[in-house]
């Protein structure tokens, strides 16, 4: 078989770290964006801590799932992707909203 299934003792750890990877990636992305939007340095630091925790989860996940060779490269790519994507998307958001500065949103009447 090409893959070695997760050991019974690591079964819980495997899916728990898998879920944590996605949740931490989201928390990292949210804190990163919030930090950028508000200009608060503490949020930026919290974002980096989340990313650090994400890296730990990726490492545990890779270990308990017996990743090696190709699968290990996949883990690395995933960790890099989650680190880079929020930065890329932030730049994209800023770029797509650029004309807002020239044509600000009108109140348009009755807003809540």
């Amino acid at each position: 078989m090409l893959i070695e299934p997760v050991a019974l003792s690591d079964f819980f750890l495997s899916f728990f770290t898998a879920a944590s990877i996605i949740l931490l990636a989201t928390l990292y992305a949210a804190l990163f964006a919030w930090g950028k939007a508000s200009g608060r340095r503490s949020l930026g630091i919290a974002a980096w801590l989340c990313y650090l925790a994400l890296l730990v989860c990726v490492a545990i996940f890779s270990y308990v799932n017996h990743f090696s060779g190709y699968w290990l490269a996949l883990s690395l790519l995933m960790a890099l992707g989650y680190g880079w994507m929020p930065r890329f998307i932030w730049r994209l958001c800023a770029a797509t909203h650029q004309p807002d500065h020239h044509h600000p949103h009108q109140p348009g009447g009755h807003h809540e």
Partner: protein
Amino acid sequence: MSATTYQDKAAACWTGCKQSYAAFQANPHLTGGQKLAVHYFTVALVLFMAQLLFGLLAGLQFLFPSFLYEILDFNVNRMVHINAMVVWMLYGFIGSVYWFLEDESGVQIVGLKWGQLAFWVLTGAVTLVVLVYLFIQFGAGNDTSLWLINEGREYIEAPRWADIGIVVVVLTFFYNVAATFAKGQWSGIAGVLVLDLVALAGLYLAGMFYVTNISVDQYWWWWVIHLWVEATWEVLVGCIMAWSLMKLLGVRRQIVQTWLYIEVALMFGSGILGLGHHYFWIGTPEYWFSIGGFFSALEPIPLVAMVVHSVYDSGVHRFKNSNHPALAWIIAHTFGNFLGAGVWGFMHTLPQINLYTHGTQWSASHGHLAFFGAYATINIAFFYLAAQQARGNVWMGGDLANGWRWKAAAILLNVGVLGMTVALLIAGYEQSFIERAVEGSTWAGYFAAQNHPWFMQAMVWRMVFGLMTAAGGGLLFWDLLDIGKGEQRPAAVIANATE
């Protein structure tokens, strides 16, 4: 009461229905396309209620296996539960597109009569198929039953005559959309939508031919189940979402179209070959482990990107909106899609863990939250947009009369589905552990897991949350019939940022 009295009551009811329908058709607040959309939304809502009802019956049969045995068996209840879901989603999507088609293209729908005919044909066919499922679902399968009763493929059990009908209806829908845009204005949303509808009709064909090799059969079946649902539906929802964000929040067209293109690119980049995570254990070559694992790991990235954009946009737009219930359901869509498709999906897609979890209640847990989060929520948001416009584009902001109703319905439905998801996750974990990992996928392991207290307790909790979901569904139905009635204030006006 005598038979004559019943006849009189039925006649009065029929007359009342005809009068209500005539009043609806004369509604000056709706365009022809929007009236057709409301037809689709109405049937979608009825099917949603049917999905909840048959889900409850199937859930009860886990707890009381003899309940309705040989009257309405588990396999039939489950099949109606799932097929009602698939079909009400389609009704909701088609209705949503008809809802915005004239606004987006700037002209009237080209083949409105054909669209109306297709609606009644589809609704008649769906009714007939459900009646056949409920009353003629016994006996051996053969070539005749494949054409007339059940095609035998899980989730897409419709008999072949109905399958052909679905493709014809989707092609009619495609004609209406493409021809209307061709006559009016094209936009980025229009282009993506038209191309997606080609795939929507085309991919369904993969589930319509029969092969005797079960691996080959499953190979093509997943083209419908994964590619149809997780690719073409996702893009369709992306188009619907893009338009609704412009109308509801006043987001600029450039922004939503940029995101739509990115979503399509990511869908092609990860979603299509993510299909591989279904090919692990069906007898396909081992390279699917690598392809499925790699692209499945990439699939949640767009969801993470969406978070960054939400934070950015909430700062820019401050959630000013014209329809509170619709916005609440779009927010529910964001969270539900992320948790159901992203977190729950990634937990068990890699083959190292999927070996144990494939086909257990774990899949059901993922499926419940993903379908509800990604698709049901966006349809419900459109139901509220339609209710608002049908009542004369009335106020649907704060201090709405009976506003508790939509809030309670939203809470009950979301908490109910999330509760069922967690309960099924516990059941799935127990199954994976005892049946697969400890007992090595034996029959003894299967029965040991099914009778384990963890499994039974989880199923009890699933039932409790299922009842909560059904209560939320009932409240939603009531609210949609009533919301906005008697409201005199006009809807909040959001800056027209669609140019």
